[in-house]
């Protein structure tokens, strides 16, 4: 799931950005690549990295096998740095967490409700600890009319925000924008980690 791969908030992959780096530089960028701020941030980071490391490439030292993972993780962190949520702490200094990490936790909590699949999770954060969340869901046919599943989602998402992250949500909007049948729904209970 999204917690372990190199997905950007726009759902493209850092690896994809890396592969298309020269193509985009040379001109034939697709529409998404031209307008997406996340892809652009990742692209700029990768270009900066490539430039900074070109000297190191010239050295005849063998790169460590986890180098690729380290670079991808670093690029992803760089993209995330732009959107952080403050968490309460009594200690001097601050504690913050990336919106993407919070979104992953909340989506995962919604997914645990039967017949519900979490899609997009938007987080609005005023920087002073007030956090509003908009969660887009797909529901199974069986839940199509049921507010019961949705109130369970609300309960679990709110609980996960408090227990797993340490955040109190000021607002939680649930947006049902799709419905899925149960034949295809068998893949709904994606194996959690």
């Amino acid at each position, binding site marked *: 799931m999204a917690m372990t791969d190199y997905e950007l908030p726009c759902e493209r992959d850092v690896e994809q950005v890396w592969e298309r780096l020269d193509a985009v530089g040379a001109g034939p960028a697709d529409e998404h690549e031209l307008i997406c701020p996340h892809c652009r941030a990742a692209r700029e980071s990768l270009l900066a990295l490539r430039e900074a490391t070109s000297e*190191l490439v010239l*050295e005849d030292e063998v790169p460590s096998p986890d180098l690729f993972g380290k670079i991808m993780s670093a690029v992803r962190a*760089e993209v995330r740095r732009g959107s952080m949520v403050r*968490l309460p*702490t009594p*200690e001097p*200094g601050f504690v*913050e*967490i*990336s919106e993407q990490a919070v979104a992953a936790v909340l989506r995962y909590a919604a997914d645990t409700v039967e017949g519900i699949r979490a899609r997009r999770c938007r987080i609005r954060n005023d920087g002073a600890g007030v956090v509003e969340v908009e969660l887009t869901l797909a529901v199974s046919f069986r839940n199509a009319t049921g507010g019961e599943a949705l109130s369970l989602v609300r309960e679990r998402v709110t609980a996960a925000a408090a227990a797993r992250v340490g955040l109190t949500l000021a607002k939680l909007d649930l947006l049902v924008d799709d419905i899925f049948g149960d034949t295809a729904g068998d893949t709904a209970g994606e194996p959690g980690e």
Partner: protein
Amino acid sequence: MSVEYVIADPVIAGVAARAAIAAPGVVRLEPGLRGLVTAWTRAARQRWKGLDPAPADGVRVRTVDGRLSVQVDLIASGADQAATVGRSVQRAVSRYVTSQTGLVVDEVSVSIMDIEAATR
């Protein structure tokens, strides 16, 4: 006679990194791009001198007007509450830097870049 000790920032960063990585709920530190590049150049420079650098990736140390602040970027475990992990890193870093170097840390800031399923 007065004796002055100067402890360089990379030393503080190395000590802070050790404390942070040992704190409960921390999967690993996240160096970020600047950190990766700095670590590589620092490693290369030290290798010419025949030294192995202590890992300080993911930790930045700043002294402004005599105030020492430490910033730690990390990946937290999904098994612990993120806010609790952050607080325990703040305390661990502050305490360990003081006990190892005698310096008082004015503030420790923690950025949790990602949450991963615990593997340790």
